[in-house]
């Protein structure tokens, strides 16, 4: 069992997921176990959700610019990259730094006139060496030590690299900061939304697939007992490397999309402390849950931005306070996070026993 085995497992899982996705509509409608109410609510819910997702930037136009949802999707991806590490039971504070590397990668691509079609794949690949470095460095660490180590990594990346490369506080000047031009087909924030949504859905599908597959089961085993896991003949290191690389790739792509959205990203948006905030989002969303990450993106990414515009920026000062409160309440009342709350609510809608 090695890295290559893991990857072939993943390939199989993804293929499986595509097959399931293709047949899911038919199968879910015909599953006999579901009550009529459940079937109906699933159908309605799915249609509403799809319609909402398809038109979100426009339907929410009364509340603010499409930038809000765009930003929400980016937060969702960043949170997802933290959540993915929840599979191996670790907390990473590095994703914000990895987003920064995504920004840098886009910059480099742009300087070398690489067509947009290749940029995102290149960005995703470019995350590999950094993730491997991080993984090697943190191989023997668990729990709090792992979190601190990733934080130190983020700190170094920010201080020694981004500050030099991107400049502090774009504030006092973005003079040297390279502007990023969007490809022509995502000129507006609305079209940007669909690009982000497509990427996010692809990423989320991959995550779902991996989580449902044998690899996902092994992650669970690894999380529960590393010793038992390795005595069964699986290499914990390979799985840890894989999870860290996956998380890094997601974060890096999120960073790339972020710079396309923002047109330039000064390094003060990549502060190490930001990682702690994102971690808070991930917890509140539900650590390890893909749905939770998406919910967190909506609640902590998009809604505050809408509130900013709806309240004419009066909300601005309060965002930390409110986010802290939400994290707190979720921690105390629903340890499974927003994902758990959503599931409960949905069960009631379906009418199935909670």
């Amino acid at each position, binding site marked *: 069992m090695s890295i290559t085995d893991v990857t072939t497992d993943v390939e199989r899982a993804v293929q499986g997921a595509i097959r399931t996705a293709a047949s899911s509509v038919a199968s879910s409608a015909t599953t006999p176990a579901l009550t009529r109410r459940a079937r109906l609510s699933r159908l309605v819910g799915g249609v509403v959700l799809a319609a909402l997702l398809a038109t979100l930037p426009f339907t929410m136009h009364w509340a603010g*610019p499409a930038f809000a949802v765009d930003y929400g999707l980016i937060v969702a991806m960043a949170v997802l990259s933290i959540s993915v590490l929840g599979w191996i039971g670790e907390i990473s504070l590095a994703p914000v730094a990895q987003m920064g590397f995504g920004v840098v990668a886009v910059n480099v691509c742009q300087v070398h006139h690489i067509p947009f079609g290749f940029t995102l794949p290149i960005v995703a690949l470019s995350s590999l060496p950094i993730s491997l470095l991080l993984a090697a460095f943190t191989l023997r660490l668990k729990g709090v030590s792992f979190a601190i180590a990733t934080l130190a990594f983020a700190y170094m990346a920010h201080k020694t690299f981004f500050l030099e490369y991107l400049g502090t506080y774009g504030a006092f*000047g973005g*003079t040297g*900061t390279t502007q990023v031009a969007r490809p022509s087909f995502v000129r507006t924030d609305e079209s940007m939304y669909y690009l982000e949504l497509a990427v996010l859905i692809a990423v989320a599908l991959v995550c779902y697939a991996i989580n449902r597959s044998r690899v996902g089961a092994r992650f669970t085993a690894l999380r529960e007992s590393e010793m038992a896991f390795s005595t069964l003949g699986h290499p914990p290191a390979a799985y840890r490397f894989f999870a860290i690389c996956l998380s890094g790739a997601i974060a890096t792509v999120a960073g790339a999309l972020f710079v396309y959205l*923002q*047109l330039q990203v000064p390094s*003060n948006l990549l502060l190490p402390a930001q990682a702690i905030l994102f971690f808070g989002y991930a917890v509140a969303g539900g650590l390890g849950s893909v749905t939770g990450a998406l919910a967190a993106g909506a609640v902590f990414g998009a809604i505050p931005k809408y509130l900013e*515009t709806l309240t004419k920026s009066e909300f601005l000062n309060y965002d930390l306070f*409110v986010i802290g409160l939400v994290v707190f309440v979720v921690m105390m009342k629903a340890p499974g996070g927003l994902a758990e709350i959503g599931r*409960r609510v949905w069960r009631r809608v379906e009418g199935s026993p909670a």
Partner: protein
Amino acid sequence: MRSWRGLVVFAVLLLVSAACNGSSAQRDALLRLNGVGGAGTGGSAAPDQTGAAVPSDSGVVPSGAPSVGGPGSVGASPAAGAAPSFGTPAAGGRASASGGSRSASSATPGGAPVSGGGGQAPAARPGAAASSAASAASPAPGAAPAQANGNTDVGVTATSIKVGHIGIYSGPVGYVGQNLSLAARATLQSINDSGGVNGRKLDVLVRDDGWDGTKGINAARDLVEREKVFAICCTQSVSTTDPLTAYADQQKVPNVGPDGWGLVQYGGQWSWPLGVPAMSEARVLAKWQVEKQGVKKAALLHLNSPTGQSFRDGYKEVLEKMGGKLEVVQAASFDDPGTTTLLARARAANVDTIAIYADSGIVARLMREAAGQGYKPPKGFAGSTFYYFNVTPELTGPAGEGLISSSHWTPHDQDTPGLRRYREVVTKYYPKIDHTAWTVTSFVGANLFADTLKKLGLNVTRQRLKDALDSTTDYDLGLGTKVSFRPGQHHANTATHLVQLMREGDKLAWKSIGYDDRDATFDK
């Protein structure tokens, strides 16, 4: 058992809304701080005839004449010093500087955010000759086709022009940033109180960016794409103005009077910055220090940002060209100012002076620490307009004596007609404003915006505004610099004046040291 989850959600929503309401109370507190009761200051200040007469004496210093606010000052006074009296809480905040006129804007033409006016742009107005009173005379009826109902462009109606303004009210530099915004709002309000722009009121939508680019750009997009403002005016939050430059070009929205500190802002076709580039400040400062102070060796602490680096490069270039040497350079950031080590290195290198590009907080830290060690470089500390605020001597305490800063406009201790007028206008609305080069930049920006609009007559379009701004020549409010733009060349202001913290009674105050110079590098 399950209902508590619903309760939790409800409670959170409640708190959010409470937070939002609470914040307007906070703004009121802010306004009280500045001595203004409610916000709907002088909506009723009867502008009438005066409005037409005042505005564009452009070429000439407006001298004492205008004092438009004379009768209107009634509106300003009521709650001035007076106790809490929350006055008009709802109207408070930053919503709209001009009373209720916002509702009028609903009539804006639906789509087409891009200026449709490209064709009708009066290219036939080339010369700079226009600048004088011509504008006031021309409410020329029928000058343009679309103005029958006054909706000549996005955000323009017969009675109002929607203007976006993004200020800094919170975040790490909220404590100084708010002054820039308050000065801009005061000026825009004064323009409305004196009749507005050819009969149209400026409907100013104010936003806070908390000095965070994502928030600022979110606000800008909201203003432009949803609120459909005609232009953005006097936005001087550098973290927003830099990306805003690209965005303004993309949307073809005029962005009048940004800070212009970062060089990137000069590359925008739709931005007209009015501040001085940090590099120019550095060049002038270095020249003066060598010539007048005889500085040979210097140390430099700069925020590690591209602008900070441009300050460093400008300083080093001039210093070394004139035979001096920059012995010690150190980069700082807000979370890691590195002042202690800079001092140690500067002392070891035995420098004549320490030049600084950093905010008041870091400057204060540096100088307090130096004083704590009983150290002062022979020629003292000097730097940029970054800390030309009265908050600086408050933070440095006595340690700040002798600190040299620069100003982009006539320093505030001078008594010129231009400054008198500036102060009169601004303090009428916000008596406790902390005057600095940047508040003056706000003042000039708002006036330039309004005066140029007046020149357009009733046919107000974005493209015509751009053309008119691009042909601005020697616009002068008597504040030390005449502003001129040419298409593609927006470096209007490169003049730097030096000021110094000197003892005045038992306090320190900024005093002009009578040195003005211009950095000619950017003239083309």
